């Protein structure tokens, strides 16, 4: 088999698998979206209020917290995976929670990875809101809550961007979820595509295992889905940034 032939054949089969809505591949994409979506959602619930507090309040250890967040942005995902693994394994301190090798363990790992990213980007967006706007809101008799709403409204493009960036990091991540999720699929049928439906197998971890076992076309199909999701998220981010800038100059 010539090299070009094998790639073309791989891509053709991959497209057939996607077009045929192959259940194995769909279930993997589903687990990816579910795990990364939930992790991003929970991380946003922490990160957005946190960035607001950091921007608006003085408190002890604020500088340390900022350093921690900045360090957290560049955390290697395999390190987070290792950390969550030794915490959650039954022999470890949080083993009683029985979370190792479940989607929840993967959500925890991605939450740790994504929270600093969302915090940092939304903090930058909130800090960019002119002080005059905040002061005006107060002078008009607004409560803390009213002012928060005004600021969040002003910073909304940046905040949505931060959530999308977090999601983009989560969905593309492989090191942590491979370690804490175990890349598990249910029992499949012999000779079928891949294994049974996914339990903790995501687009990224499945690409590693399908490449290992030589099932290149399945790996390509998963790769095409992953890159489509990723490009959509990135396109959304750049569009939002464009709109944010327009508003900034208006």
């Amino acid at each position, binding site marked *: 088999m010539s090299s070009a032939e094998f790639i073309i054949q791989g891509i053709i089969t991959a497209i057939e698998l996607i077009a045929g809505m192959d259940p194995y591949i769909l279930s993997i994409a589903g687990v990816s979206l579910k795990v990364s979506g939930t992790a991003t959602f929970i991380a946003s619930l922490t990160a957005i209020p946190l960035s607001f507090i950091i921007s608006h309040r003085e408190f002890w250890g604020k500088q340390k917290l900022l350093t921690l967040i900045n360090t957290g942005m560049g955390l290697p995902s395999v390190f987070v995976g290792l950390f969550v693994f030794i915490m959650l394994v*039954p022999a470890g301190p949080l083993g009683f929670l029985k979370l190792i090798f479940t989607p929840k363990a993967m959500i925890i790992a991605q939450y740790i990875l994504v929270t600093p990213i969302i915090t940092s980007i939304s903090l930058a967006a909130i800090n960019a809101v002119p002080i005059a706007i905040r002061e005006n809101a107060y002078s008009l008799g607004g409560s803390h809550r009213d002012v928060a709403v005004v600021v969040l409204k002003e910073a909304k493009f940046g905040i949505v961007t931060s959530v999308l960036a977090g999601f983009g990091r989560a969905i593309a991540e492989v090191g942590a979820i491979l370690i804490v999720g*175990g*890349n598990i699929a249910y029992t499949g049928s012999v000779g079928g595509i891949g294994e049974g439906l996914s339990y903790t197998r995501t687009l990224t971890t499945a690409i590693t295992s399908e490449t290992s*076992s*030589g099932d290149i076309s399945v790996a390509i199909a998963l790769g095409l889905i992953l890159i489509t999701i990723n490009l959509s998220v990135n*396109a*959304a981010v750049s569009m939002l940034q464009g709109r944010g800038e327009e508003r900034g100059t208006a």
Partner: protein
Amino acid sequence: MNKILLKILLLMLIASLFSGCIQPDAKDTPAGTLSLSTTTSTCDTDLLDVLNARFEEENNVKVLTLCQGTGKAIATGEMGAADVVLVHAPSSELEAVERGSFIDRQFVMYNYFVIIGPVSDPANVTHAASATDAFTRIADAQVPFISRGDNSGTHTKELGLWNETNITPQGAWYQSVGKGMGDTIITADIKQGYTLSDRGTYLAMKDKIELEVLFEKDKEFLYNPYHVMAVNPEKFPDVNYEMTLKYIEYLTSSEGQDLIQDYGMEEYGQALFIPANNTDEAV
């Protein structure tokens, strides 16, 4: 135009976020599960799909299979993160049993390791008198040898063989990849090098590679037995020991053994594994 596109994208994202929250948690962990930690050879060959499908049906349980390689599989069991392990490195298994990590160790099946390499056979292992002779020829010829390097059963076997030859494999020709059997075979195929593989994984991947079995006749040295062991419930009370006992019984029952005996006949024209209860050699 951009606005509409942006809205669609945002909607998609929000939908995916909520799909995460709405999905019932009950689905997270199936009612009855048995967590099996095992080697890449039993996974890559699909043997477990056959064995587990029948077991799941009969016992109303879901088997969650972690395909890890023997070293990692034993470590996973020793940390209590699996209920049962199916592995193939007797020396490591016995050490782990000795430490009290596992109980109920049972012999399930066996096959033989094979030395695979490029058809041109630059090291001439085809004419080797023994497995150690074959390894010596590879070292002398300085042709690429790809090592699992992952503390797996196959890796343990390979190191044992080098030990017998009194050669310390080192140099640019000896390359350790730290990966599973499938990856290692693919790497060897790309580099046109040699590697040690279990017969099952080689047969399962045969169509995707150009390497061939060049040496397999040394039955004594290349013997490859698989054992199943239960994670000791005294160490980890939360393991599903009851279901593990059923699983061990099933694998060693005539039902499980027959499935192992027949597996591969249709697809490869030969059995990939020989059940423990079969004492005459089929491979």
